[in-house]
């Protein structure tokens, strides 16, 4: 049985979530768009989940729209914005966004949109003053900066960035897929216009997420052909998965900091060539990311896998391809350093014993393969 340290890619299902999914699977069938009692009961599951999610995030239920996950939510934002002919054809994103942001952004660029990719510091932080300068020079339709980076765990100052956007009357979106359920987040205290998150990063089911759309803002639907989600997203609603998302969010909590700290401290102490990527402090709970110059991250991953430890060399989306992470390159890492990296992402279900077992195995690998 392996020890799973790739929670930034996806997480094991929480027992409470599994229980909720099974409870709903056992219920009488009903399409939540049907007006008979089965349909109404199915819709009730979704609406109860919506109300709960809104309560936890500090927004109104009308502002939560369920989707198939973070990728769909992110695509929806950019596709929706681009349909407005009155907006400036310019979007601003950080240079370390997830592929599901860069994909639609690159698509807009091919269609003639201007794209500004904000540089980041050596720790992966976007400067609000840099954003202010960009927006002062060229108005934009949308700014999108992720709350927490999926590879290096850097946390952005979303309050400051959204304030800058508000000053320039520019819409602000944040991909909070890695952050929701792990760091404090209250949409009633933020000037965020759109926010993305998904369930499978917080021990919920795969295939479900949500997009927050602040009242007063709107987006045309990405999926057409049905009235679901208040005419915002056609398609039979996955009520079980949505209920699972709601439970996952309710019981979510960050990885204990002492576990992450121990892992970082011990690696820095015992492996001289280790380079921590991302900030030392103010880091996404559970996220550990190192470069080990002289080693191939892919080979370290395989050896750890062989010894029963599941980690990653970068984002899951790029892990199958031997190309350096754009996030690490944006930090100023060389190709070699970027390809020598490992991401170890813990969850609240990991233990001190597991971390210690990993450290022992990892030190052994490094020593035996200098």
């Amino acid at each position, binding site marked *: 049985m392996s020890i799973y340290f790739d929670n930034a890619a996806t997480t094991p299902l929480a027992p409470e979530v599994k229980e909720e999914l099974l409870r709903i699977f056992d219920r009488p069938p009903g399409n*939540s*768009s*049907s*007006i008979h*009692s089965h*349909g*109404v009961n199915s*819709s*009730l599951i*979704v*609406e*109860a989940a919506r*109300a709960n999610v809104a309560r936890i995030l500090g927004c109104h*239920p009308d502002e939560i729209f369920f989707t198939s996950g973070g990728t769909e939510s992110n695509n929806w934002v950019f596709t929706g914005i681009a349909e407005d002919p009155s907006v400036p054809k310019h979007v601003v994103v950080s240079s370390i966004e997830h592929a599901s942001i860069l994909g639609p952004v690159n698509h807009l660029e091919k269609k003639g949109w201007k794209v500004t990719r904000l540089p980041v510091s050596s720790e992966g932080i976007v400067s609000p003053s840099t954003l202010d300068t960009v927006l002062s020079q060229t108005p934009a339709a949308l700014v999108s900066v992720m709350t927490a980076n999926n590879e290096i765990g850097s946390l952005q100052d979303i309050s400051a960035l959204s304030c800058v956007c508000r000053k320039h009357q520019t819409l602000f979106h944040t991909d909070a897929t890695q952050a929701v359920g792990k760091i404090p987040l209250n949409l009633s205290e933020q000037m965020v216009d759109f926010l993305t998150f998904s369930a499978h990063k917080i021990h919920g089911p795969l295939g479900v997420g949500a997009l927050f759309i602040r009242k007063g803002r709107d987006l045309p639907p990405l999926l057409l052909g049905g*009235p*679901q989600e*208040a*005419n915002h997203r056609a398609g039979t609603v996955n009520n079980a998965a949505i209920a699972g998302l709601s439970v996952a969010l309710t019981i979510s909590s960050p990885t204990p900091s002492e576990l992450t700290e121990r892992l970082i401290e011990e690696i820095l102490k015992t492996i001289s060539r280790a380079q921590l990527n991302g900030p030392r402090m103010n880091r996404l709970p559970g996220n550990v990311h190192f470069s080990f110059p002289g080693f191939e991250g892919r080979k370290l991953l395989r050896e750890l896998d062989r010894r029963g430890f599941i980690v990653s060399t970068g984002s899951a989306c790029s892990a199958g391809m031997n190309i350096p992470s754009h996030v690490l390159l944006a930090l100023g890492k060389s190709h070699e350093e970027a390809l020598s990296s490992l991401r170890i992402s813990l969850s609240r279900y990991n233990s001190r014993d597991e971390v210690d077992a990993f450290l022992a195995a990892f030190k052994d690998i490094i020593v035996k393969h200098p």
Partner: protein
Amino acid sequence: MNRLDLRGIPCPQNSARALLKLSTMDAGEILIIIVDLGEPAQNVPESLEFAGHEILKQSKNSEGLWEIQVKNCD
């Protein structure tokens, strides 16, 4: 008096939200629900009655929307 504005919400999401709101209220409390004319005006009262609640009154309001007064019978 509790009010719930469900204009623009399609069926049966509107019924579900109405039932959800009622589930948070005490038995005997009254809820005023606003829905669109047409199918919502028919479906929502039917769903509420099917679930055991008592429709006290319903009519078109000054905004041209359908207003339903329902007593929570949970």
